[in-house]
């Protein structure tokens, strides 16, 4: 038996998994419309390759990956592109993003596709193909898989962790997938093993999924993939937390698992990879749990781009919906508009009702009970972070490691004062990002200003040079003329030297002019005003010193 490590804190929210986990999953019928956001993954959005009016086949490229961290988007079925225009996308901001709209033709006609002999091609080619197939992590973060497995030549993966923990309440997609398609998942894992060449492969599954564990055990029989049953404790499915449980290693703050020799992917990602290598299918569908206030909570295989409305209808919603949660109740997003499409990162839609999700009780002041700190899987002190966020003391929030917060919601879950702690932390994070952007903008403005000043200086210099050249030409024409004598200190001097002197003289004149011109408006000031001016000057000097120091810091951090 493997000895398991554990992470700090964690909670046991009511699971609500049995509602949806016992029905076999079904395949959703073709939707009436598909809406495919170009930005469904972490990194740069995909570049659209079709236009309104185009007829596309199932699996045809709609938008290609641009940049390293990006992933392609494909047509989930055959049909006509009706528009490429903004539409609300599933994102906490609920802002519109550019989407390809497709009207299915009902034929579901595939583009030419074929299985991939992935062992016969170089790894770099396989990675490029995963990128083209639009494969991203389906555990929720949607980090492009090809980036995760693009390892530096000196990077060795000790452990490949496959995440089947599925710790969020209500969600059962991975559970169902493991029960029903264990062998296929293992096929996908083999591809990841081929890429990462790990010394060991571990599949972590929470002990509340005995049937999934049994199915995966059976599928892995005879291989050296190990199924590790872990205690049910939210958020053990968090990447860093699962790695800690299985390997005892902590992913350093701000680092990636590969840095400590671990790669981690979700079971659903492995399944998507299997579909690609064994069937040649890009990522165009996924499993989703539809649960909550519906008659038949269940798991449904659905085309990406399907409006949530059509998906939810399949589970027969009951009256009394008070909104929807896209994702789980701990980390999901509240939405009101079901016209939003399913995206690659969607794993669950919960129909809320006042009974299942009663409105939050009004927040009371923090009593410093530190139950949040006891529950925090990142060993943070949420009560302090809350205090500093509330006071807008963002420097202090960073000192207290705000950015190590994974927003799992465990703190807010246990808070007896019902303080929406995660909301405070998101606010603080976004404020800090905003300020960083502003600082960057100021930095750019400063650079621009300096460049402009330099240009003006250069133009002056060039003008002086031109002037001098002209004069030189004139002198050359009349070599003996004494008119030029005043500046010709040494008549034997080389004309070029004279030229240089003239340039210098012109420069000094210009400088003197500038020097005398500038302070003009600060003359005849009262002593108080002068003091103020001096103070401002001092502050300016300090800022520029700070700026140059900051620049130096940036340099050194880049090097390290």
């Amino acid at each position, binding site marked *: 038996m493997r000895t398991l490590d554990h992470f700090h804190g964690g909670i046991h929210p009511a699971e609500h998994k049995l509602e949806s986990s016992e029905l076999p999953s079904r395949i959703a019928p073709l939707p009436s419309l598909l809406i495919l956001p170009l930005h469904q993954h972490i990194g740069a959005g995909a570049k659209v390759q079709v236009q309104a009016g185009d007829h596309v086949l199932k699996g045809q490229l709609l938008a290609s990956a641009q940049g390293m961290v990006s992933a392609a988007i494909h047509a989930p079925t055959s049909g006509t592109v009706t528009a490429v225009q903004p539409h609300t996308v599933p994102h906490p901001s609920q802002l519109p993003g550019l989407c390809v709209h497709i009207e299915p033709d009902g034929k579901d006609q595939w583009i030419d596709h074929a299985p991939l002999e992935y062992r016969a091609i170089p790894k770099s080619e396989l990675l490029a193909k995963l990128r083209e197939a639009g494969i991203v992590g389906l555990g929720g973060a949607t980090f492009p898989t090809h980036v995760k497995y693009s390892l530096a030549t000196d990077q060795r993966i000790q452990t490949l962790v496959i995440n089947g923990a599925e710790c969020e309440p209500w969600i059962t997609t991975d559970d169902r997938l493991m029960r029903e398609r264990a062998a296929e998942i293992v096929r996908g894992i083999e591809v990841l093993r081929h890429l990462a060449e790990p010394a060991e492969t571990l599949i972590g599954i929470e002990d509340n999924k005995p049937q999934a564990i049994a199915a995966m055990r059976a599928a892995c029989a005879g291989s050296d993939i190990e199924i590790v049953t872990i205690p049910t404790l939210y958020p053990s499915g968090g990447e860093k937390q699962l790695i800690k449980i299985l390997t005892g290693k902590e992913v350093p703050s701000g680092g990636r698992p590969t840095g400590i020799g671990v790669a981690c992917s979700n079971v659903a990602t492995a399944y998507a990879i299997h579909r690609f290598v064994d069937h040649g299918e890009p990522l165009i569908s996924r499993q989703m749990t539809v649960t909550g206030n519906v008659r038949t909570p269940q798991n449904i295989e659905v085309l990406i781009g399907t409006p949530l409305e059509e998906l939810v209808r399949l589970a027969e919603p009951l009256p009394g919906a008070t909104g929807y949660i896209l994702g789980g109740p701990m980390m999901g*997003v509240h939405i009101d508009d079901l016209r939003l499409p399913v995206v690659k990162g969607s794993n669950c839609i919960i129909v809320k009702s006042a009974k299942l999700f009663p409105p939050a009780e009004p927040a009371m002041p*923090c009593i410093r009970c530190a139950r949040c700190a006891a529950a925090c899987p990142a060993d943070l002190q949420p009560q302090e972070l809350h205090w500093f966020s509330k006071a807008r003391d963002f420097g202090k929030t960073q000192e207290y490691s705000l950015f190590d917060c994974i927003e799992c919601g465990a703190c807010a879950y246990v808070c007896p004062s019902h303080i929406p702690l*995660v909301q405070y932390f998101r606010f603080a994070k976004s404020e800090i990002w905003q300020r960083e952007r502003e600082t960057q903008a100021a930095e750019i403005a400063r650079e621009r200003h300096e460049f402009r000043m330099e240009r003006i200086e250069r133009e002056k210099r060039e003008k002086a040079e031109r002037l001098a050249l002209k004069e030189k030409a004139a002198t050359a024409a009349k070599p003996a003329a004494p008119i030029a004598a005043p500046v010709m200190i040494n008549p034997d001097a080389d004309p070029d030297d004279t030229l240089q002197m003239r340039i210098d003289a012109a420069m000094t004149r210009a400088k003197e002019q500038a020097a005398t011109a500038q302070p003009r408006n600060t003359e005849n000031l009262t002593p108080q005003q002068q003091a103020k001016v001096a103070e401002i000057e001092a502050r300016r000097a300090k800022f520029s010193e700070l700026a140059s120091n900051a620049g130096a810091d940036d340099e050194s951090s880049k090097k390290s």
Partner: protein
Amino acid sequence: MMWSSPFVTQATSVSQIMLRVLLALIPGIAMYVWFFGPAVLVSITLASITALATEAAMLKLRNRPLKPFLTDNSALITAWLLALSLPALAPWWLVVVGTAFAIAVSKHLYGGLGNNPFNPAMIGYAVLIISFPAHMTHWLTPHGLGGIELSFAQQLDYIFGGILPSGLTLDALTMATPLDTLKTQLHLGLSVGDIREMPIYGRLAGHGSEMVAIAYAIGGIYLLYTRVINWLIPTTYLVTLFVIAGIFHLADPVHYAAPLFHWFAGAAMLGAFFIFTDPVGGSTTFRGRIIYAAGAALITFLIRTFGSFPDGVAFAALLMNICVPLIDIWTQPKVFGKKGGGK
């Protein structure tokens, strides 16, 4: 409305937590009534009414909603803890002044629930013992020692009218506390052993009061069991008090009482489970809680043994409350991913 995750919470609310603390005090109060008569119930009632009235007035002045704060039960805890810290025969105005000061000044002037750096009940106690020291010494003689015991009506007469039955003086009804007696008798040259032979002492500490302390501990165990309080503070406090008292007792048993005496005398048990565990003014980190509770134990022992006040729990709480911000800064735990020596 919840627009941001998480969308589920655990049911325990502040008001439920506080209610459990009140429930946990009931065994101690019952023992108190058994040994010292029902006067303490009058103090508790008076303190509760004063606390709620002051809370309401302050909330009104501060333009805060009344309902959530009047029902959070926190003012009642302050009231009960203060009432239990006062002599049962305390005149009505003593209870009212102490409670009103605790709620108005040490709670609301600092920002109300969650913002008071000091334990309000202990501030109330400190104010009273400094301002009215004489009234704070009228501890009733416990039941079972053959002393004169007042009926409830007679107790009420004294509390509200200052009237004692004819022919009785306060001295005949009250006595010094076991901790006080120990201190004065030691000064008179008696040994701890001789003093403990006196009838006011029981098996562990004071007759009667030791049973109240045991009942507080039972309430405390209920709080631990229901996870209302964290085990670290009571454990550290009691262990440290035991160790310090034990060292002195072993070195000089004639002049220093046994550690168990310190546990069950005075307010040590009340402090361990109900006062130092007040989260608002306490430390929040693991190491911080150890420092906080150990410091409180040290101060308790020092004041009891070498100081002039009868007990040290209240001042231990207040002095350690002052240190909490610094302790918390010093004892911040390493966060996930930053444990490998800052790699």
